[in-house]
């Protein structure tokens, strides 16, 4: 075929459907997806685990010091470790990680990320103090008043650190995310639930029977309460999920997430032994990660 006849054929058979071009850009995505991938799902999980463990421990210890003090002295260092890993992920996810501290040059309440960064930074100070003083107490240098002061000072920034994440992931223009009004409600509630579960495991490992008994009931109650924001979140996301997944896929994901609540509740009511506790909390953590992962994935796959 010579060049001329190829050219004539091209004119006779345009490569595009004419109807598509009449619609112009109507079927193309308008927004750009930020580079927030799986790391963000892990970050949201670790953020909840760290802040939730601190908050659950602090609230329990301040309400019943005699029961929770021994386990609290282990929980704060664990929360600090979780927070450090989380902060590492947050920094590494930036386009220019060496500029992380630029977040601290201004305080902007209109920016959930600014609020979150300030809360996390402030929270890290009393948490480090509480963790350090807990470890010192184990070595014989007990500054109980200072440790309690650090715990009290950490309450508000810890709560802020837990509460900002969901708002960050819902206050934007991304398909699906922009409609998730209950993302913040779910994530903050879930943080406390995971924290209670972690504290329960630590209590059981340390042989704190009284604390374990109390936390076991608290864990079951929180599992049930968490179903409310979780259901509301899924109701928000239903239109987006309907576009992304088939009905069968939606049912399967829904069943898996429901199992993440039903199995831990069943195990807790069945037996309070350590293996049961461990499995229950592990199942909850897997479910919590799955919810976050499914959520983070929406704009990356959305045809909206």
């Amino acid at each position: 075929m010579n060049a001329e006849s190829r050219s004539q054929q091209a004119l006779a058979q345009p490569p595009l459907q004419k109807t598509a071009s009449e619609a112009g850009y109507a079927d193309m995505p308008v927004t750009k997806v930020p580079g927030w991938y799986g790391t963000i799902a892990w970050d949201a999980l670790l953020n909840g685990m760290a802040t939730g463990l601190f908050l659950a421990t602090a609230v329990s210890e301040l309400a019943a010091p005699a029961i929770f003090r021994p386990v609290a002295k282990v929980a704060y260092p664990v929360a600090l470790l979780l927070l450090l890993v989380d902060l590492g992920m947050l920094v590494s996810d930036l386009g220019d990680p060496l500029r992380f501290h630029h977040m601290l040059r201004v305080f902007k309440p209109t920016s959930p990320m600014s609020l979150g960064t300030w809360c996390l930074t402030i929270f890290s100070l009393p948490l480090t103090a509480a963790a350090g003083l807990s470890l010192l107490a184990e070595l014989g240098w007990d500054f109980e008043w200072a440790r309690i002061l650090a715990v009290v000072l950490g309450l508000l920034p810890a709560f802020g650190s837990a509460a900002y994440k969901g708002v960050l992931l819902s206050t934007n223009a991304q398909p699906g995310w922009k409609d998730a009004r209950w993302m913040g409600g779910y994530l903050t509630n879930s943080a406390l639930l995971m924290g209670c579960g972690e504290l329960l495991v630590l209590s059981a490992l340390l042989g704190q029977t009284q604390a374990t008994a109390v936390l076991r009931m608290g864990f079951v109650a929180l599992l049930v309460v968490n179903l409310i924001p979780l259901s509301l979140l899924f109701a928000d996301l239903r239109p987006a999920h309907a576009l992304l997944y088939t009905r069968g896929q939606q049912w399967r994901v829904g069943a898996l997430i429901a199992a993440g609540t039903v199995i831990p509740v069943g195990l807790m009511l069945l037996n309070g032994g350590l293996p049961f506790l461990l499995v229950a909390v592990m199942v909850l953590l897997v479910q919590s990660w799955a919810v976050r992962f499914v959520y983070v994935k929406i704009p990356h796959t959305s045809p909206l």
Partner: protein
Amino acid sequence: MASREMELSGLTQTNDPPRGLLAEVAERLIYPFQHGKAPEPQQATGFYTDTTVCIGCKACEVACKQWNQLPSDGFNWSGNSYDNTAELSATTWRHVKFVEQFSAEGSASEDVVSPESPFSRWLMMSDHCKHCLAAPCHQACPTGAIIQNEFENVYIQADICNGCSSCVAACPFGVITRSDMGGHSHKCTLCYDRQRDGLEPACAKACPTQSIHFGPVEELRERARQRVEELHQRGLAQAYLYGDVPTETYSEMHSFYLLVDRPSVYGLPEAPFNPWLHMMGDYVRSVTGGLAAIAVLLAVVFLMKP
């Protein structure tokens, strides 16, 4: 990304004085906290883009690339009319869009055809940042890198941005993009450097049909309204302005358009929504979720403690 640009971006600038490691670290730590004096506010400026006279020559794209020294994005056939630019990006701040409205029989469908062109028509539009008055990217930026400069244009300070991508997620028009090269976000600056020197932006200067108008926003609005009236009188009843006035869900834009078809045909949201309208409610729900869990935990502790 072309490999030459990647190679060049990795080179040390020759005019950087040699510094020790400590000096480098100290500079990196202190520099972002040094706030300069804000310039005196000037008359708000912007763009008014009349799509009815755009001929799709892409002179604006070229002028923008040239003036701002933006690297090439390579050359790819998109298969979408003459639009091989495809989208706005960190290295493409102007994007000429092409819409071919031709019916299979050679006459356009009734709902889109204009009396001026009874058989068919092209729609062309030079897209760019909208420089929104209440810009979601500006509200989202946690570093203060995104500012409204003295001309009320939305401007990214590239030396401050740390590539968190909050602005990318926030923009309802898909304008801002994080660069793979430096990891920072970039978009149209409305030629801030040229404006400071009293020059008009490069794209407006290069536009051969005066589709891109630059000037004080109020003057542009007046000019645009007159043009719409003129088009209506000539029988083009579909002509309207997009973004010139605020709506219930979005602020006015300092870069607005004269369109003759639905916004979505041009790749614009039908009714842009500022995500920040939901923020307070989302915080309330977030705090409620947390407080409810604390209340339950406290109730169990008080009920069960001996």
